[in-house]
């Protein structure tokens, strides 16, 4: 009898704790630092957030498509692409605003895009990623034809860093922390802040909605309270990181293979602060519609209002 009572009690406890258990997937890399306070239990909310780190987009897509997660931290562009492919996902807020820079090797100069005519720029992964589209846009604004006047080459960021430091590459458009990895030790300098130029062109603050917190619609509809709670915890985790950068780096160390000194330096050029979508919808809309206009293959359609609410 006692045993049965114990079993019932035990299962009740398990069920209660299960209800407050949510899964969140987050990219591995510098974006791990803002979430590290949650992972290490420094910042907690009433729901227990189970964070899983993803390394490449395929992993994230597979987990989202197979409903293995409730929340996802994703590049805003990837979220919008998934939404356009019929995945029921909504943007809750944007939290990464600065990361992209043009670096120039110490032997080369940059005085506007025109000075790159006849030269080559390297940028990560492939055609259509954020900094590639931004760069193509800025080039054409300055009367330069990308691919024709200036060659654009795609390569893994690690390879770009290695070749930049060995003097083989003079110009690279990179996200942090690769910017710092490329120029650390006097191998080059930052020639252009993409956020600043973007802001000037668009008459917006100098920031780009790079990455945000997303929720799966079916989860959000059945757990509206939990969504609010997770959003608040997420925001507090970023705040904690901004106030205690050194400690945040220290507790992120176990997840990242990048040296702390590099991360610390690159954090100076990145900006993380949480803005709920209600306060930054126009930033996101302008950004996504510009991407769609410039590179429709990469961003086939601009997400409708369901993308911003569930």
């Amino acid at each position, binding site marked *: 009898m006692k045993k049965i009572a114990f079993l019932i009690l035990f299962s009740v406890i398990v069920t209660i704790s299960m209800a407050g258990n949510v899964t969140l997937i987050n990219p591995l890399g510098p974006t791990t630092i803002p979430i590290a306070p949650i992972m290490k239990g420094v910042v907690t909310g009433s729901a227990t957030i189970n964070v899983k780190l993803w390394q490449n987009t395929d992993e994230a*897509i597979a987990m989202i*498509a197979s409903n293995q997660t409730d929340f996802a931290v994703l590049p805003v562009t990837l979220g919008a*692409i998934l939404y356009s*492919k019929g995945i029921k996902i909504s943007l809750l807020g944007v939290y990464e605003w600065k990361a992209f820079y043009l670096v120039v090797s110490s032997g080369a100069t940059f005085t506007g895009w025109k000075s790159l005519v006849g030269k080559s720029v390297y940028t990560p992964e*492939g055609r259509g*990623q954020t900094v590639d589209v931004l760069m193509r846009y800025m080039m054409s604004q300055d009367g330069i034809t990308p691919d024709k006047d200036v060659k654009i080459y795609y*390569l893994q960021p690690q390879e770009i860093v*290695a070749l930049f430091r060995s003097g*083989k590459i003079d110009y690279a458009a990179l996200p942090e922390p690769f910017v710092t990895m490329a120029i650390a030790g006097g191998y080059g300098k930052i020639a252009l802040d993409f956020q600043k130029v973007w802001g000037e062109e668009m008459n917006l603050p100098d920031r780009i909605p790079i990455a945000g917190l997303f929720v799966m619609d079916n989860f959000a509809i059945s757990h509206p309270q939990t969504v609010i709670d997770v959003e608040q915890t997420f925001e507090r985790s970023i705040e904690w990181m901004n106030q205690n950068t050194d400690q945040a780096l220290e507790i992120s160390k176990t997840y990242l293979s990048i040296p702390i000194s590099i991360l610390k330096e690159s954090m100076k050029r990145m900006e993380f602060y949480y803005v709920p979508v209600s306060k930054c919808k126009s930033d996101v809309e302008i950004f996504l519609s510009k991407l769609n206009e410039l590179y429709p*293959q990469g961003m086939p359609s601009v997400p409708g209002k369901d993308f911003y609410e569930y």
Partner: protein
Amino acid sequence: MKILFGILIFLILWQIFSVILNVPLILPSPYLTFESLYHLALQRETYQAIFSTVWKSLLVLLIVIAIGTPVGFLMGINESVYQIFRPAITVVQAVPVISWLALVIFVWGIGWKGPVVISFLSLLPISIFTTATGVRSTDRNLIEMAKVYKVSQIRIIRTIYLGSLVPFIFSTVEVIIGDVWKVIIVSEYLCGSDGIGVLISWARQYVDVPRIYALTIIAVALGITSERFVKFFFRKALKKWQIQS
């Protein structure tokens, strides 16, 4: 006829599996894929990419045969040469491409050279070992007999070994023709500036999964066609060659 039936079974299985899985983002249905293939067929850049991949593959095939066969031949007829070369070639064979990717790009840059060098180094060991093994297994009785009749070493090499060289080249081509496409496409993906691998990389970038599968179909078609062609052509050529000698 049987082949068509086989393809049909494959397509039905694919359809069933994609319906069961029901995640077009991971496995698109055959219909979606062929629709994407149709769009690809209308684009000029698709043909440019195919052309680029094809000529790179042919070039790799040519260099691999031109270097692999003589080296493999020397290793086959001389045991010391075999022992000296074997470790280095085994290392080249075992090292994963990504480990020396930066080195290749540093020396040859992005463009057609990088993918060609990577593919060449990946396939060279196969060519060398196929030839070496072939030479080593040349009919010992023939050689013994030649020795009994005091035929000079030079003549043995010329008539018996070199005489069996043609089949070695054929078998090398047969072995690597199926792999060369895969290797070229992967290396284009990693450090190319054009070709099917680059198109796959871009399609992946914007999560256009049907397009990835459609490009894969093109790659598979290239692989199967070239393999069939080589088998057919070589069987004929080999017959002719055997009659002549």
